[in-house]
């Protein structure tokens, strides 16, 4: 596994049209991103189609990476996750917002600090999720990893929509408090 600096370098070179760097980036990250696509779709055919579009998007948007303030793996993961979930939702229902823009709109300001923040937050979220009640952390995980909406979560836990919204919001604040410690 290449380290984050390598991956950041590959993305920067992709932004300049360097196909060798694209190939290196693919080798370094495709298994990770394919795992994410597979988790969302649960079948290889759709996951493969999604991964193709993920890498096309990475190549085309590489020049925007440097200004978006995310650490390189987070940027790549966010593209893979959002594209997969948008596609899954388009198939399932019209509910829930499109996420395609999210990875383009991240912070312009944190810069290199984002890398440090990322490192300190890595691992921490697992501990902080453990501080939430089991069904709450499960809901956050389902929303992120499976793209479940408030309505789907309400159905899953057999609670009214507003109830699930209220307790998930409280959980997010608790999670943030823990992550900021």
């Amino acid at each position, binding site marked *: 596994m290449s380290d984050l600096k390598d991956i950041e370098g590959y993305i920067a070179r992709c*932004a*300049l*049209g360097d*196909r060798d760097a694209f*190939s290196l980036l*693919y080798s370094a990250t*495709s*298994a*990770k991103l*394919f*795992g*994410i696509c*597979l*988790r969302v779709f649960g079948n*290889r055919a759709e996951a*493969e189609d999604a*991964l*193709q579009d993920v*890498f*096309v998007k990475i*190549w085309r948007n590489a*020049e925007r990476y440097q200004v978006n*303030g*995310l650490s390189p793996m*987070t940027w790549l*993961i966010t593209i893979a*996750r959002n594209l997969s979930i948008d596609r899954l939702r388009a198939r399932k229902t019209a*509910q*829930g*917002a*499109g*996420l395609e823009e*999210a990875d383009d*709109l*991240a*912070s*312009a*300001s*944190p810069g290199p600090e*984002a890398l440090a*923040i*990322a490192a300190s*937050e*890595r691992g921490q*979220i697992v501990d902080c*999720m453990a501080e939430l009640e089991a069904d709450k952390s499960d809901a*956050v*995980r389902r*929303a*992120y*990893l499976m*793209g479940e*909406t*408030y309505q789907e979560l309400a159905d899953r836990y057999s609670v009214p929509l507003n109830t699930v919204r209220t307790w*998930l919001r409280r959980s*997010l*604040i608790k*999670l*943030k408090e823990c*992550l900021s410690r």
Partner: protein
Amino acid sequence: MTDDSNTEDEIVLSAEYALGLLTPGEAVAFEDVLSVDPEMREQYASWAESLATLTDEIAPVDPPKALEARITDALFGVSEKRSFLSRLGFLSPVLGGLAAAVIVLVVLGQTNFMRDDGPTYVAEIVAEDSSLIVQAQFNPEDRSLRMTRTAGVPIEGRSQELWLIAGDAAPVSLGVWPQGQVEAVLEVSAEYASLMADGVLAISDEPQGGSPTGAPTGDILAVGPVTLL
């Protein structure tokens, strides 16, 4: 108290956005805030970093071998050089090269650019409708690229940028045409000078001061292959 609840709203909103829990209308409204509010962007970035680590529990799976080729075909199936030049409807390089050699000889002969020593490369960078014509002469000795614009003026408030395309590589910028000049001399870096012999020169329309991205962003106005004089 108000500050705290504002902060809580920001935390929740940016998390809901990162999770994709907002309705489309709410998400668009939030994106409007993101575009002008650096604190909110930081808040979002922080959530994006934290949430991305949830994927640590997902095991990597090697995609099928054939997929990489499928992706590169989708991206580069048409060679970049060709697709770049096809934006203009590039003339046959052979014909263009011959015409360039003849015309440049005449033009450069008149303007006394000719030198006796060493090989010299020339190109006529010409628009399909001849609305822009630039004669270029490259001297490998001092890596100077001398150019004269014999037709065409830049659009008001825009710049013209000169590119070198070598083989299948992406265009590299040689520089921005100096404002208000009909002649220009550029010094080409040693790295690019070695690519000049088999290269193609192109001029694109760019925002004032040149392309912000390092790649051509506007229309390709004119192209011409480099040939040995």
